[in-house]
């Protein structure tokens, strides 16, 4: 009995081994390397060797206005992007769920399609759309005498990035939520119908609670992803105007690979990691308590 159980456990570990090896080699080790790096002052450019500085990099970050600006921009992006993405994905998933199964595949693919495009292509495409002189959007808006400074005004730039992100990323959560919807047993809806529940109340009291695990999954993925926003911003605005869209990952990237300050960049990365971890824990708590 115990022998076979042990064997089973062993085979489980064996199955997990290839992934675990890669995970340790390419995630855990670099993470720990980054953590130790964050305690050093190491600037590739200078002739000076790496020097242990303790928490100096973290202290510098706390007094660095660009760090706070980037953190603010990141939060702004998360707040503006995540709720609409989830709501829209939920709405689309519900819509697709309601149409006959045979025709679902087409709509599912259509909404998922933008997600497949790499960010460099999508970014260039939207930069053209947003161009205030000859872009697609202003060409249409121009006919009613409106000219929007999509990405050239510091007030408009972030919402524009969010709009593009919505188009680009809504497909992923939508597919997950649709699968979740299709997993809800029909019996619940039938019972609700017998009790006379319709429309919003069915959605509120049956669909949403049963969708909670999927929703949690989608939200956590979405929020952690949004905190790491980089591609869209880098392709469309390069962090401008006036650094209003320079997010933390871009700042980390520039610190490490334009300014070659590896220690400081590692410290910034760990701060970002802490922020994301904190938010993930809060979300799991909230969903569990409900």
């Amino acid at each position, binding site marked *: 009995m115990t022998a076979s159980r042990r064997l089973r456990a062993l085979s489980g570990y064996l199955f997990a081994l290839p992934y675990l090896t890669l995970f340790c080699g390419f995630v855990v080790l*670099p993470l720990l390397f980054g953590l130790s790096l964050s305690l050093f002052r190491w600037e590739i450019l200078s002739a000076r060797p790496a020097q242990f500085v303790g928490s100096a990099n973290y202290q510098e970050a706390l007094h660095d206005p660009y760090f706070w600006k980037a953190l603010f921009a990141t939060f702004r992006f998360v707040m503006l992007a995540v709720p609409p993405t989830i709501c829209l994905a939920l709405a689309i998933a519900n819509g697709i769920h309601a149409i006959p199964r045979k025709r679902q595949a087409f709509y599912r693919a259509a909404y998922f399609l933008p*997600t*497949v495009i*790499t960010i460099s292509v999508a970014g260039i495409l939207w930069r053209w759309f947003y161009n205030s002189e000859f872009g697609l959007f202003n060409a249409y808006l121009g006919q009613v005498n409106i000219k929007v*400074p999509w990405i050239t005004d510091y007030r408009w730039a972030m919402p524009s990035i969010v709009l593009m992100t919505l188009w680009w990323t809504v497909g992923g959560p939508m597919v997950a939520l649709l699968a979740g919807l299709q997993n809800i047993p029909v019996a619940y809806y039938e019972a609700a119908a017998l009790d006379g529940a319709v429309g919003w109340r069915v959605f509120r009291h049956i669909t949403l609670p049963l969708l909670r695990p999927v929703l949690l999954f989608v939200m956590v993925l979405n929020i952690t*992803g949004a905190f790491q926003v980089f*591609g869209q911003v880098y392709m469309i605005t390069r962090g401008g105007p*006036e650094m209003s869209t320079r997010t933390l*990952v871009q700042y980390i990237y520039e610190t490490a690979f*334009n300014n070659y300050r590896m220690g400081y960049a590692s410290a910034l990365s760990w701060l970002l990691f802490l922020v994301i971890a904190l938010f993930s824990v809060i979300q799991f708590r909230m969903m569990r308590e409900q």
Partner: protein
Amino acid sequence: MERDSLHPLSQRLTPPPPSRRELMALATLAAGGLLTSCGRGGSTKTVVRFWNGFTGPDGRTMLRMVQRFNAQNPDVQVVMQRMDWNTCYNKLFVSGLGGRAPELFVVHTRAMERFVRAGFLRSNNDLITGVHSIDTRDLDSNVWQGVEFGGKHYGLPLDCHAMGMYFNRALFQKAGMVDRQGNPLVPTNREEFLHVIKEITHPGKEGKADTWGFVLTNWESNLYTFMRQFGGEFFTPDHSKCVLYNPENIEALQFCVDLIRRYKVAPQPEYFDSWIGFRQGKVGIVFEGIYMLADLQKQKDLDFSGAPVPQVSQHKAVWADSHNLCMRSDLKEPELSATWRFIKYLSDNSLDWAEGGQIPVRKSLRAAPRFESMKVQSAFAKQIPIVNYLPRLPFIFEFQTEFNLALEKALRGRATPAEALQNAETRMNGIIARDRGNG
């Protein structure tokens, strides 16, 4: 190569499964692998890897030169890889640290200092007088000095891409800014410049200006030119202190702000869109690098010409940079001589390079009738004696970030020129202190 492109950041940021682009990249990598292995295999070809950021039309010009060299030199195989400049510099540093840098690569004069300081570059003083010698007296002395560090030269300048004035001949004509023969009255000083752009600017429908006299496209190169013309300094000569916040620079920046707000002869600057405005024939004058020429030549309906930048204050100055052909510091034979042979080939044939919108820095080549027939190139080339490179700083990219932010704030009216420059100066001095180990 593969390890470089699988950067941890890009891994985290690319959500979807392999796309067509990625598959194509894989295919290219595989093809590249084949090529290299061919070179190392049966034949005795020496492979010279050549990285640069020529991703525009200049890349096609360079590719033709590479192909011609490969055809003429059967024992050498130059394999060129093009990527945008940011990526190129990042990859150069990462590969340089790992000891896998390409044999040959291009570094701008403004970025030389950091590469030299990191010990990545090989000086070429022994080669330039060797078998395949180049007469350095034929090079423009100020351009040649740009690659000199501690008495040694660490690159061979291929060109000098100075900024110049592009102007729309049709708009000059329309505004009556022509002489009796109908030739445009090209402005050369502040009064003429202001006069011309005021005449060209006129409001279109709904009270909006339809045609603009001038527009700021690249703020950095434009303002650097103006500030140098006003006599502004950026750093103390030993680069120990930033002195950006000075009356001359403030005046120069105010001059540009006034063009937008006071004289209303230039629209709000909008990055690259402003350049599109010139291409569409809505703007009379822009100051841009010679490398933008190819872009304009594609625009068949645009009647434009080129001239030196007007002198708007007491000094002569114009922004420029150079592409320098640099070698890895630990380059050995046979790659070393093969690489140098290719470098010399590019320099000797830099008129081909000029054709694509560049100015060669070999005086003998510029004297050739073929160069004189390149109208815009030869007009811009007149400025070579007065070109100003950005200060040679190890932290040049940080300086550019701060400088551009200050310009953006002032030009958009979010700060006065004095406030913006003072702020940037303070930040820069913090960076210098940190770099020197006090911060």
